């Protein structure tokens, strides 16, 4: 009898949990899974003549993600164009992550080591850029690196250079723009990790004659590692799909994955390929996230 009552209670509890989760599940289903399903379906269709799709099953969209038929003699080869763009996206995203890491960790450290009352102010300064639209900020950065922009003017005034350094529309410009845009996403999680760090541990390390570097490596880093990894993921993932910044800063001459996908839905008129490319990008992000989960769970097991 007792077990029956217990089972009933557990069942009622399960039902209640499901009922409570229903709104969230509905929202995820309607606005996340359903649209993704549409993308999956479209990636297996045939492109319409002038955009849109024909409801004819085809694997061409997926085939074209990695392979191409030569425009002129129909031989099949690996798609040089797509691989170049993929390589560039990954390389620029990794570089962005590295730059934000180099700039972001000391910044976060600086904020976390201020007296408790001042930290809110410094964090507030970090969030100020979020008040302005991304597009406006990107164009503002571009304004600074123009031939007649602040940097070149300043260098010329200082007598460092005679002719302006052309910085607009280069990979450097894309990197600068992305690092600027994504920097807060690195600072915030790293700050959260450092703030939790017990500085008495570092003192203990010093007491045991650890050098500064050794203390940083063996005492501080293991404790803030999760924050650094979280920050890196937060920067790397949106960098992969970045669209506005590469388009404006790169002058449209060099594409990243986001721009390639956009082209397929616009001038390329190949929606299935665009859908397949989007899913490929999603898969890439998923790989990065799985790798992240592996890293952090292993961390916990060790710790």
């Amino acid at each position, binding site marked *: 009898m007792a077990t029956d009552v217990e089972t009933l209670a557990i069942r009622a509890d399960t039902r209640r949990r499901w009922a409570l989760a229903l709104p969230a599940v509905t929202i995820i289903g309607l606005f996340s899974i359903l649209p993704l399903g549409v993308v999956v379906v479209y990636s297996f269709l045939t492109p319409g003549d002038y955009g849109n799709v024909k409801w004819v099953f085809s694997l061409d969209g997926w085939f074209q993600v990695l392979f191409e038929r030569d425009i002129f003699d129909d031989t099949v080869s690996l798609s040089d164009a797509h691989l170049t763009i993929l390589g560039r996206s990954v390389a620029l995203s990794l570089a962005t992550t590295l730059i934000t890491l180099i700039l972001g960790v000391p910044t976060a450290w600086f904020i976390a080591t201020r007296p408790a009352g001042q930290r809110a102010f410094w964090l507030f300064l970090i969030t100020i850029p979020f008040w302005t639209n991304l597009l406006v900020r990107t164009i503002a950065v571009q304004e600074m690196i123009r031939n007649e922009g602040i940097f070149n003017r300043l260098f010329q005034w200082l007598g460092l250079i005679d002719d302006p350094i052309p910085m*607009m529309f280069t990979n450097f410009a894309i990197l600068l723009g992305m690092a600027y845009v994504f920097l807060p996403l690195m600072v915030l999680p790293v700050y959260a990790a450092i703030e939790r760090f017990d500085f008495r541990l570092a003192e203990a390390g010093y007491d045991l004659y650890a050098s500064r570097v050794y203390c940083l490596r063996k005492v501080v880093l293991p404790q803030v590692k999760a924050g650094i990894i979280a920050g890196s993921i937060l920067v790397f993932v949106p960098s992969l799909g970045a669209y506005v910044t590469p388009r404006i800063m790169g002058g449209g001459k060099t594409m990243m994955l986001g721009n390639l996908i956009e082209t397929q839905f616009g001038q390329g008129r190949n929606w299935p390929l665009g859908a397949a490319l989007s899913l490929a990008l999603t898969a890439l992000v998923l790989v990065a996230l799985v790798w992240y989960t592996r890293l952090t769970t292993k961390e916990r097991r060790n710790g």
Partner: protein
Amino acid sequence: MKTRLVLTTALLSATALPAFSEGVLNIYNFGLYTPPDLIEKFEKTYDVKVTVTEYDSNETAIAKIEAGGHGFDIVVPSASVVPIYIEKGLLLKSDPNTMENFKNVAPEWASVAWDPDRSYTVPWVWGTTGIMVNKDVYAGDINTSAIFLDPPEELKGKINVVPSMNDVIDLAIMYVGGQPCTTDKEVLKAARDKLVAAKPHWASIDYASFEKFINEDLQASVFWSGASIRIRAENSGFTYGFPKEGFLKWQDNVAILADAQNVDNARLFLNFIMDPENAALISNYTGYGNGISGSEAFMTADLLAAPEMTIPADFASVARFQETCPPETQELYSRIWTDLTK
């Protein structure tokens, strides 16, 4: 007290909005292409509130309109895509040819291949796609596509190419001796190779803002004639060239969408812009000819004198009116474009 007052006014104006809904018109047009004074005049004349939303290319516009739920009443497709709009059933057959001001449409624009009876569209403006160069930087011949396909030393690294796929590939095909929309793979290959080889000398493939030329961050561009007029007004160093290998002539048209909510106001607008005085407002702002007879009388002297407005007699024979390429060609264009912009 003051806050409450503000709140009440805000609420009042919010609830008052639907009352205006009878008098609205939503226009979907290319960027920097809709004269504010024209809209103001239309709003005053008919007591209609106009909202203008901008797009950057015909492809963007078609994609958005086809997806539905956009709320636009009027769109401005290029001649080369009007047949696609009609085939997809996106346009309302509004019979502009029966409108009061249709008599003003110049004979050469009254019956056109993409809309033989003008039963869907009325002319917005026409212009050409050519080359714009800062003569202070490069003094040589600019009436050639070599400016961007075999760039002179002075211009290398300072050239922009508009990311308008058909314009750019059409110009390259004519440069290597072919005809736009060709299916001749040898010609397409030559055009592709030419573009790919020239790309390292370009600064950007961008709908660059006019300021970039006015400030001389960029010194040359594949560009539209009207854009050249507007930039020249701010920086007299620039000159427009008509490539002797062949350049493009085009026309953009105003049409009412099949799912328009404000059809009556849209009809008023179509009729309104066929009035010579109003058509001149469009030309004065955009820097293009408009196809309405008698509008010259209301154009500014600067515009009438602009060399971009008249195709020189020597080059008239190499002007090509831009058409819709068949889907097979379009696919090749698109793959050349990916190859170029990768």
